[in-house]
């Protein structure tokens, strides 16, 4: 029996094999459908330009998101109480979990020609603000989406500075710069590489924002180029070649990031929290007010613009919206269960250790492989798979299978990041004890892992469901007929200038996303 068990591969390896097989099948499908044409020599300069432009856009978006998000987190950490703090944190949370299409809607509503900014400028007799379409529009939208995420992560990280060290800083008369250098610096150095890698990849492969706010091919990403090859030119071979290029670039990036290594957090502190020593002082107060004000002015209008939908809540009762909501719910539930299942299997494979202690190299490999999924172009993946399925499925039928599958894979890096650390912690604490007691399989999951996984699992399910619910990626290819989700319907309403109805759907999407985030936090 022992021999049979040792020959049996870990289920996590089977999950990894399944994902790799899906990717390979998709690429094979694309190449097969389009022949061997691939990229023509003439398209290479265009693609080189796209890569350069996307890299510049992603670098700018990443840098600004990190700077604003970290400054905001520091300001909120220093100012533990001020009027509107809770409201600002609620808006930041909403922006961090809001679907991309909602942020796009908010950008157009808040900063577009008909938005309050342009109206105010008109009243004041000032020239209208520049159009939001172009590189600045894309970068602003990415900052609105990612700076809140950075702020949430960094706020938690700054709160984890041991209380003893804050006391020590006060006893040693630390000034503002000393606090930044010795208290916050190590935290920033620990958190920024992971955040930067994640944001850069997300912006480098951005689709909905670039498609709607890009203002033309000059600001395209490879993802948009794949969409154009598939949807406009119906050139499968070209799409496959661009997809391969994007995967290669993403893998190169992730490998480079992997070389930077991971930093361990501090030992947890003891005793009551101690206020930061740099909370006093007028110069930092001015800086904090400026940062909080800038963040509120940038993120607030975008998120608050969905409140315009309050006037048309009746639109949510229409049969189209109800059907779209039901479809969204089914797809999101399937995607969430698949994503969490795969993440759990991969995370447990990373921790699998016959002698009770997992190999750090294997952990790092699984961590980086899941991060690499962020670089997978969903359009190419889904289209390649559809090519293989089209003999047996209609477009809508295939969509019902492929949309949740691809959404699950796209959510996997996020879900994995929620589940892997507690599983790792539990393996480190109790791995050898479990091995000595012969605990394996379900018994080990129930006794060792479940107590630490219960909350993260709920959070992961909620996050995966929220990401899928708000997805406006692959649904753009398969949407129509019976397969209409809420974001798809919202985009249709925006396209038809039924802005109030789009606002009502946006409001519903944000409310569900925030509700899921809140519920996950309270489990």
């Amino acid at each position: 029996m022992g021999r049979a068990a040792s020959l049996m591969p870990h289920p996590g390896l089977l999950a990894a094999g399944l994902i790799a097989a899906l990717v390979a099948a998709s690429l094979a499908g694309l190449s097969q459908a389009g022949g061997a044409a691939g990229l023509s020599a003439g398209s290479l300069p265009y693609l080189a330009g796209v890569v350069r432009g996307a890299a510049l856009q992603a670098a700018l978006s990443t840098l600004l998101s990190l700077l604003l998000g970290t400054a905001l987190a520091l300001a909120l950490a220093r100012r533990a109480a001020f009027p509107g703090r809770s409201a600002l944190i609620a808006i930041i949370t909403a922006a961090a979990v809001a679907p991309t299409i909602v942020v796009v809607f908010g950008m157009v509503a808040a900063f577009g020609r008909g938005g309050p900014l342009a109206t105010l400028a008109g009243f004041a007799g000032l020239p209208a603000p520049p159009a939001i379409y172009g590189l600045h529009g894309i970068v602003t939208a990415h900052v609105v989406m990612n700076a809140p995420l950075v702020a949430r992560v960094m706020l938690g990280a700054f709160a984890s500075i041991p209380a003893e060290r804050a006391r020590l800083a006060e006893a040693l008369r630390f000034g503002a710069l000393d606090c930044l250098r010795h208290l916050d610096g190590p935290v920033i150095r620990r958190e920024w590489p992971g955040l930067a890698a994640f944001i850069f990849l997300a912006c480098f492969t951005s689709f909905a924002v670039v498609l709607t706010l890009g203002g033309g091919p000059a600001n395209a990403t490879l993802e948009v180029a794949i969409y154009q090859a598939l949807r406009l030119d119906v050139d499968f071979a070209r799409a496959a070649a661009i997809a391969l290029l994007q995967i290669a670039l993403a893998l190169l990036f992730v490998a480079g990031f992997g070389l930077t290594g991971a930093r361990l957090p501090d030992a947890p502190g003891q005793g009551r929290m101690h206020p930061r020593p740099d909370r006093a002082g007028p110069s930092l107060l001015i800086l904090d007010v400026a940062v909080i004000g800038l963040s509120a002015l940038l993120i607030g209008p975008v998120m608050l613009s969905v409140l315009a939908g309050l006037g048309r809540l009746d639109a949510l009762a229409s049969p189209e919206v109800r059907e779209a909501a039901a479809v969204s719910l089914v797809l999101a539930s399937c995607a969430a269960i698949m994503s969490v299942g795969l993440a759990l299997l991969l995370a447990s494979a990373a921790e699998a250790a016959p002698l009770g202690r997992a190999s750090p190299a294997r952990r790092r490999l699984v961590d980086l492989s899941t991060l690499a999924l962020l670089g997978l172009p969903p359009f190419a993946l889904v289209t390649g798979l559809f090519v293989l399925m089209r003999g047996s499925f209609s477009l809508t039928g295939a969509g019902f299978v492929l949309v949740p599958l691809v959404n699950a894979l796209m959510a996997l890096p996020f879900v994995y990041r929620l589940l892997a650390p507690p599983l790792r912690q539990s393996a480190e604490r109790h791995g050898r004890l479990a091995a000595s007691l012969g605990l394996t399989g379900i018994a080990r999951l129930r006794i060792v892992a479940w107590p630490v996984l219960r909350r993260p699992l709920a959070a992961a399910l909620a996050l995966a469901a929220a990401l899928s619910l708000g997805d406006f990626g692959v649904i753009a290819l398969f949407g129509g007929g019976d397969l209409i989700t809420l974001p798809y319907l919202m985009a249709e309403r925006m396209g038809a200038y039924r802005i109030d109805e789009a606002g009502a759907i946006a409001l519903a999407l944000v409310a569900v996303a925030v509700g899921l985030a809140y519920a996950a936090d309270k489990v």
Partner: protein
Amino acid sequence: MLELDDLTVSYPDFTGRYSLVVPKGALCAVIGPSGGGKTTMLHAIAGFEPVVSGRLAFEGQNLGPLPPAARPCSLLFQDNNLFPHLSAADNVALGLKPSLSLNGAEKAVVAEALAAVDLADEARRLPSELSGGQRQRVALARALAMRRPLLLLDEPFGALDPGLRKAMIGLTDRLRRERRLTVLMTIHTPAEIIDAADLVAFVAEGEVRDAGAPADLLRKGRSETMDAFLGL
């Protein structure tokens, strides 16, 4: 002399009310059950707890209005005493100047403090490259470099093995005699400090229940609570 006269710290879930006198240059071992308020007392002396009422004085000076940085004391914790990105020497130097831009005389003070704890050769090492005992000696060196006459040790050697713990207590005792420091040290195992301490304070339920010479206080029958704590 350190005087605590009905020094009161209050939280919704805890109230500490401390009265204690520690002669100048003495080593006072603070013992008592976990959660009894030993750490809160040390933090109140260091200025990290909001004091509701009572008096706190050292050498006749009222410490109540002073912020932590202006008090004549250094506090060592059980963990997280060092900044992980700074070398041993820089961690000591922080006690003199947080900007770390030291002049020659200040560098000499840092070197002397590290030498006093036998770490002169480890000055450039990061905390992660030092053992648990060495890390606590660096923190002790910083306290020495700051030249504050009152040293508060909040179970700083609790995580070390018994032999090292004994050596660290011996080192602390030697340094306080050489430098005329007044030392308050919380400790879980009173037997380890019985030879070095001049005074033992038993803290339970937020009060100094008893204080006296070690041989006198730690004998059986002094009080039921004490006997229960000592397992006598």
